[in-house]
């Protein structure tokens, strides 16, 4: 009896093995599900894609024609949101990592607010954006109001990713730079930022992805009118809202919903690629020559 007990693997090892298989199983199942989802979407969506679909004007509530107005609205919202959020977030991240430190109250506040913010349903952001940007600032339903609302949602994410990237830069590099009598801005510009670029780029990507995927927050701020915006002060409909509307509210809109979703995913992949390219180019530029 005693011998049998010593030969058997300890209970702890057996149970972690079980948990391991469970975790892997669930993970693989999710992955397969995701793959299936993508495959189904592409199968239905790719045949819809054509030049006419990308550049044409929508007709019949989006059942036919193209999505040019939606694309333009989307680009406005995402470009504005990222264009405003990026300098804000990068500046804040630099200030925190280079001047205040991770232990600072500001960083703890931002870090803490992240957990809260990620738990806030985006409808709440929509209502907030509506009250502040549409009403208080008088922007009305407009792409600009939508973009500003998105800024509130993505800045904390970008700040956190950038601070992580910046603080991961080895102290030896900072010490080397400082000992060479580099001024603080030069140290940041020549040594710290290039080394932190991958982290910062991933933060930007997270922000862009979030902005592209958002629907609820934009319903209340940039609106859902299906028309070509003349300026960011017009209201307009972004891709995610278009997909939502076609799928939920327009009978017979499924085909173009799939088409639009395919465009959204392709857009996301392209932006991903572009950011990787830019950051590796900038990295090479600063590390060679």
């Amino acid at each position, binding site marked *: 009896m005693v011998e049998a007990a010593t030969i058997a693997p300890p209970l702890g090892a057996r149970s972690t093995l079980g948990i391991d298989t469970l975790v892997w199983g669930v993970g693989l199942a999710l992955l397969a599900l995701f793959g299936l989802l993508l495959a189904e979407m592409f199968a239905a969506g790719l045949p819809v894609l054509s030049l006419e679909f990308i550049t044409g004007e929508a007709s019949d509530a989006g059942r036919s024609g193209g999505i040019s107005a939606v694309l333009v609205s989307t680009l406005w919202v995402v470009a504005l949101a990222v264009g405003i959020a990026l300098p804000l977030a990068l500046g804040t991240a630099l200030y925190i990592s280079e001047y205040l430190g991770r232990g600072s109250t500001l960083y703890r506040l931002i870090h803490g607010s992240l957990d809260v913010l990620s738990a806030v349903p985006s409808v709440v952001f929509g209502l907030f954006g509506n009250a502040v940007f549409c009403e208080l600032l008088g922007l009305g339903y407009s792409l600009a109001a939508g973009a500003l609302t998105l800024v509130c949602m993505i800045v904390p994410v970008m700040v956190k990713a950038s601070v992580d990237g910046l603080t991961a830069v080895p102290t030896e590099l900072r010490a080397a730079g400082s*000992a060479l009598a*580099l001024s603080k801005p030069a140290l940041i510009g020549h040594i710290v930022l290039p080394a932190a670029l991958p982290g910062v780029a991933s933060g930007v990507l997270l922000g862009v992805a979030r902005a592209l995927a958002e629907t609820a927050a934009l319903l209340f701020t940039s609106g859902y009118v299906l028309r070509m915006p003349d300026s960011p002060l017009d209201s307009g409909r972004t891709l995610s809202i278009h997909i939502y509307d076609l799928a939920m509210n327009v009978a017979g809109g499924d085909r173009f919903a799939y088409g639009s979703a395919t465009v959204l995913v392709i857009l996301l992949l392209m932006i991903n690629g572009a950011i990787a390219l830019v950051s590796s180019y900038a990295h090479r530029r600063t590390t060679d020559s």
Partner: protein
Amino acid sequence: MGYLGDAMDQRQACHEPAAGEISLCTDQLCLSYGSKQALEGVSLEIKPRAVTAIIGPSGSGKSSFLCCLNRLTDLTAGSAVSGQVKVGSTEIYGTQRHDPVQLRRQVGMVFQRANPFPFSIWKNLALPLRHHGVRDKQQLRQRIESALQRVGLWDEVSDRLNTPAGALSGGQQQRLCIARALVLEPSILLMDEPCSALDPISTQRIERLILELKERYTIVIVTHDLAQARRIADHVALFWSFEGKGRLIEYGPAPQIFHHPTHELTGAYLAGHI
């Protein structure tokens, strides 16, 4: 110019520097990291154009002392310095807030682990030069070449200046870091165990280099290698940790410290009893 420090509690201001020399001297220097005191009452006057070796067991505050001499302590949040550090006629921790950037042009530093930037060899040296106003390509090339010559690296790397510095061997990287510290023409060079991660041959090269450099530079080198201190040091300072606080317990010319130490701990440490 007497040695300060062997009389630990004696309070004595730094001497006025002789003309033309950038002197280096500390007086009752204390350093703490938050609530932990790392250095207590260190007073010593570094001899110009000579090699001063700082020895002592690990944790006795040798690296911390070095970081006080170019205000690299500024990088550590929560560090606080009291007492005096004088470089030339400037009190670098004085109330008139000496600009650390100016200071670090005069006081170069080489670290324990070679830390080249993740750039090409060329850019490692060009970056500090450009930052300090050398823009002319011809002049850049000349100064970079002479710095690499001085550390004996020119013949080894002149045909691949555009390759990443990280591809060099450990010894070459450390010599590149020395070249980088020299490229700004400082008058004082601080070295924190520069050979501790190197093989014997690279170590020998760097020791030879240090002996050449002392003709022109004041060198303060931390080393845990007593044999190395015997080989290269003109003056030796022994640090010791008392209840976690680093203190200077003996300072003097190398032969005196090695052959006739006055402090009992020095004798025991050098004999390897501690």
